Structures are given as structure tokens and as C-alpha cells.
């Protein structure tokens, strides 16, 4: 079974900033019982200290995640935003990226984190796939594209 969670494939999501995004995402994750109640506060703080924006060659994405204690399982989501929101670039203090797709990474087992992240990086580097995800409104289609990288 893929780590990609069908219920976390969301399109046309309209939020104005990371705070709104995390609020929106946390509610969904809590309802699905995938994270601990501490997730929301932690993801906000972690994104400030350790930003997760990544610039692709034409589409910027973000891979927000918390430490393992705030989540209950392994899951990856795909959230296609209606309009870009600003994330800071990973490793930087001042590079702001207009992020169009967010891949929330819920990782319970730190040992699996490297493998999952490497696979996700394959996707981040693939502009064609990112563009297809961006313009797609079909969960099935997005699932198929992302799963090619997660297998």
C-alpha cells in the first residue's frame, strides 16, 4: 500500500498564508486521526525554525513536517493551492518562495524518513509531473502521478 493517503489529495485549496494552511491541514489530519493534538502548534513552530519550501525549476513546493512524536502514522498528502502562498526556502532565513503545491509529510518512523524524502525529491525535481499535478482536478490522476515516485 502506498504511503500516499487518498483523503489527503486536495485540490483548489484556497488559503492566504501558512498559518491558515496549517490550520486547515491540521483539522483534516486530526479528523482522520493521523496526528496528535500537538501537531498544529508544532508544525507552525517548526516551519518558522526549519522552513521547508523547495524551489523546483519552475514550480515551488513545500514539504512541511513535524518530529515523530506529534504524528500517529506515516502518510503523505498532496495539496494543490488555488493561489500560491509564501513559504521560506529550506536552509535559508530570507528566501521567500511562492509555493503552489504542498506535500505534507507525516512520518512516524524516523528510519523511513530518509527513504520517503528521497522518493519525494524525485518528484520535486520533475517539472512535468508537478505541472500535471497543478492543472489536474482529478484525485485519481494525481494519485497515479505521485505514486510513480513513491513506489
Amino acid at each position, binding site marked *: 500500500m502506498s504511503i500516499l493517503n487518498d483523503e489527503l489529495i486536495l485540490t483548489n485549496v484556497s488559503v492566504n498564508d501558512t498559518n491558515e494552511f496549517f490550520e486547515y491541514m491540521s483539522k483534516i489530519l486530526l479528523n482522520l486521526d493521523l496526528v496528535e493534538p500537538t501537531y498544529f502548534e508544532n508544525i507552525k513552530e517548526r516551519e518558522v525554525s*526549519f522552513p521547508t519550501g523547495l*524551489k523546483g525549476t519552475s514550480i515551488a513546493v513545500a514539504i512541511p513536517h513535524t*518530529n515523530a512524536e506529534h504524528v500517529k502514522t506515516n502518510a503523505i498528502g498532496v495539496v494543490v493551492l488555488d493561489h500560491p502562498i509564501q513559504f521560506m526556502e*529550506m*536552509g535559508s532565513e530570507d528566501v521567500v518562495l511562492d509555493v503552489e503545491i504542498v506535500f505534507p509529510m507525516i512520518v512516524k518512523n*524516523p528510519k523511513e524518513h530518509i527513504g520517503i524524502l528521497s522518493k519525494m525529491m524525485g518528484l520535486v525535481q520533475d517539472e512535468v509531473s508537478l505541472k500535471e499535478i497543478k492543472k489536474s482536478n482529478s484525485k485519481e490522476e494525481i494519485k497515479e502521478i505521485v505514486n510513480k515516485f513513491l513506489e
Partner: protein
Amino acid sequence: MSRRIKVASVCGSGTVSSSMVSQKIMDILKSAGYQAEAVEVNPSGMDMIAESGDVDMICHTCPLKKDYGIPKINATGFLTGIGEDTIAEKILEVAKTIK
């Protein structure tokens, strides 16, 4: 023969992206003929090992505000594969200066 270069690879968790990038850093240094070793840490771990004075180069995928007096290189591109050549050049430039 130059001595072994010690690289600190720093990320938020101290385990995940730091391990991924330190692999690439080691490959670059070793294929350029250097002996090298890496240690993966989070920022507080970096504070600790910086005090030991035993680090030649810092490569990071999380923000590092502090100036340790050690060359710092943002290695996030080693995760995404974007701008890898530029990072590799920077690493080799620092390596050249290590006596």
C-alpha cells in the same frame, strides 16, 4: 597528502536531510582525492561540536544564524538536485583552503 576533512552536516532533525546531503558531500570530497568524514547534527548539536574546534566545514539544510567562524555552505540543493554544481564548487573551494 592533506589531512582528513571534517564536515558537519546540519538539519532540523539532525538525522534525515543531513544524512542525505552528507552522502553527497563525502562523494564529492572523496572523488576529488580528499579524505573526509561527516557528522550529522541538529543546530544544538552544531553548537556543541563547534566548541570542540574540530570542524572544518559546515553544510546545512536548515537556517544557521550563528557565526561559528567556520565556513558555512547551504546544501539544500543536494536534496532537490537543483544547483548541485554550485554547491560542489563551494565545497571544493573550502576544501582547498584546509591545511
